[in-house]
């Protein structure tokens, strides 16, 4: 049986195997770039107030929905494709930033000194609220995200890559670099890092902790909006439940890289994307199809668990002695 299979491969030429591998890498990196951008939001918020913002995925969804609506309004007015997407993205960022601020102000700030799990439950509540508000506004239907930028495929070492994939990777990298610059090179960044290390001490030194935390939420939310537009245009679909699954994966990515650590979120995202793509692509072949792509998520979680067992604070995380 096995010999027969190998024969079939040999007939299909060896380059194809390599082509397929490169294609899987391209798939994985694109997916990973999306995870990374969403993971940044989780990690920033966690880094500064040790809160898993379960509602972060919903911000991605709202971002996609707002952009969906605006593109739908602008395109019939004769606005060309690129400016329309740009305007829509900016508006989505603004809307999400406002929402992120409101979320922090109303749901999380009152809980700053509460036991650790209280804000977590609050976050779950916010996530339920946002999803159902979105249901009211944008209906229950999966919406076809307008494909106004025409998809074009390019050949890359035997694999195909579309202009949208290139766009996603470039924009993600740019946003990560921008964020890294902000956190490590600006006054705001210094204030953020100071607050995350010791909020009390930072306050004594004149840092307005509330303002810094609010800004963190706003930046994270704006990034989520961009991620929403990217996901919407890449897959061509927007739905009011789209945020939760993506949010969960991005959260895993953030933890994998070491939560609270910005380069960690990027590394975790790309790694998770690659693990998923290669897992779906090759587990079947390596296990003689006893396990197939149906175990893709098992594979991803196993990698996550193994990494954490050997490096309990994630790949780039620092050892922290916190309590649950």
């Amino acid at each position, binding site marked *: 049986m096995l010999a027969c299979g190998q024969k079939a491969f040999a007939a299909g030429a060896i380059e194809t195997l390599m082509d397929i591998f490169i294609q899987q890498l391209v798939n994985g990196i694109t997916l990973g770039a999306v995870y990374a951008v969403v993971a940044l939001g989780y990690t920033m918020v966690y880094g500064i107030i040790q809160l898993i913002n379960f509602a972060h995925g919903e911000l991605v969804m709202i971002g996609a929905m707002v952009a969906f609506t605006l593109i739908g309004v602008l395109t019939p007015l004769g606005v060309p494709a690129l400016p329309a997407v740009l305007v829509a993205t900016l508006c989505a960022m603004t809307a999400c930033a406002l929402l992120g601020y409101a979320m922090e102000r109303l749901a999380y700030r009152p809980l700053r000194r509460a036991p650790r799990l209280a804000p977590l439950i609050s976050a779950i509540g916010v996530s339920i609220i946002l999803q*159902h508000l979105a249901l009211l506004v944008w209906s229950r239907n999966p919406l*076809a995200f307008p494909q106004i930028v025409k998809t074009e495929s390019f050949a890359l070492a035997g694999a*195909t890559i579309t202009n949208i994939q290139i766009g996603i990777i470039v924009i993600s990298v740019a946003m990560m670099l921008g964020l890294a610059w902000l956190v490590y090179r600006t006054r705001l960044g210094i204030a953020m890092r100071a607050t995350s290390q010791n909020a009390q001490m930072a306050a004594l030194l004149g840092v307005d902790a509330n303002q810094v935390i609010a800004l963190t939420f706003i930046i994270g939310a704006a990034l989520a909006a961009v991620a929403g537009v990217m996901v919407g245009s890449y897959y061509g679909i927007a739905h009011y439940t789209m945020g939760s699954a993506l949010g969960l994966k991005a959260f895993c990515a953030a933890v994998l890289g070491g939560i609270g650590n910005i380069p960690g979120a990027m590394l975790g995202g790309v790694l998770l994307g690659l693990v998923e793509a290669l897992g779906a692509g090759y587990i079947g072949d390596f296990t003689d199809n006893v396990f197939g792509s149906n175990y893709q998520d098992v594979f991803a979680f196993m990698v996550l668990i193994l990494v954490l067992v050997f490096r309990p604070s994630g790949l780039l995380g620092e050892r922290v002695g916190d309590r649950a």
Partner: protein
Amino acid sequence: MKRSVVLHHANLCTLAAVGVLTLAGCGEDPKPAPPPPPPSIEIKIGHVAPLTGGIAHLGKDNENGARMALEEANAANIKIDGKDARFVMLAEDDQADPKVGTTVAQKLIDAKVAGVVGHLNSGTTIPASSVYNGANIPMISGSATNPQLTEQGFKGVFRVMGRDDQQGPAIASYLAANSKPKLVAIIDDATAYGEGLANEVEKYFKGANIRVLPREKGDDKRSDWKAVLTKIKGRNPDAVFYGGMDATGGPLLKQARELNIKAVFSFGDGGCSDKMIELAGTAAEGMLCSQAGLPPAAASKKFLDAYKARFKVDPILYSPFTYDAMQALIAAMKGANSADPAKYLPVMQKLEFNGATGHIAFDEKGDRKDAEMSIFQVKEGKLEPIAIIKNGQTVSFADFMAQANPAPAAAPAAADATQAAQPAKAAPAPDAAKK
């Protein structure tokens, strides 16, 4: 503590009672009240589908279909047992969650419904069916396809949708005969529906000595199919079948074409919707899909128009089936001249009529008898029926229409509507509605 608990529940009873009363009193849009003098009876019929969660849009569509049939029956002034029958629908949300499904089933039983249309998913329909069975209340699903549902041996369980093991072979045989694939890839969404259908398709291909690649799976929330598709591309199959819904199938097809996969793509009824074309865009061109029953274009254009007029949206997927399910229940009650399950159940078992999805009759298990299957293809961005399959015979759609002209639904149905009770061929409501 004790007193407060008891009081709490006492309040609860009154609340519940008020709820049901109010619901019954003004559940419908304000319409001119029926003339008061003749004695009337109120017949409650339950409808259950998920109205929140990932497939809430399908649930609402199901509800709309059933509601339309019910409203048409009300407009037709049906008399049961000499009284004006007023049908009231109690619409419930099962959240596609099996445990909510049984709770809601019990709620409907408590509200003394005469019958139930629902549920949507097999996963909620099966546990709910045993609750209905315990209370001897008939239920008829418009969309549950899992064979297990009617294999439980419950007397009052029906469905108007074809089973997985009817639909799977239909699309597979069409694909085998027309595309003549040598190698087929099958993907499913790891749900009861998707996997069940995919298994039946695979069984057919294997029986026909066509090679099938090891199964690939995603899940019902997946939007990224690139990894799985890339793997399939490496094996170079001639045809691909996906068992799953449009919300995941659309992105799947779009990404397949982005990866330059040239194979013929085919889907079951979950991917046989306008939404599918909208989501896949130009990639949808040429795809094949199957639906249980006759295409609405052949069975009842009237249904499509009436639905659009009533709800201001197009039907999405299963509403013609829940429409027929509701019709079947009402027709059986009318035929038996009673809303008592014990009386109308035997009528239901022998019921025959032409509904929005074709000829409807049930076998002894409660499955739809010789259900027709339709094959569609996307041509110039539209789903066009291309073939009808019945009892393993494939007829092209043009030939089918030529044979069946004039349209099967309209003429006999209108004639029947005037005759009040006729168990063997009870009249469907839609045509009676305008009288």
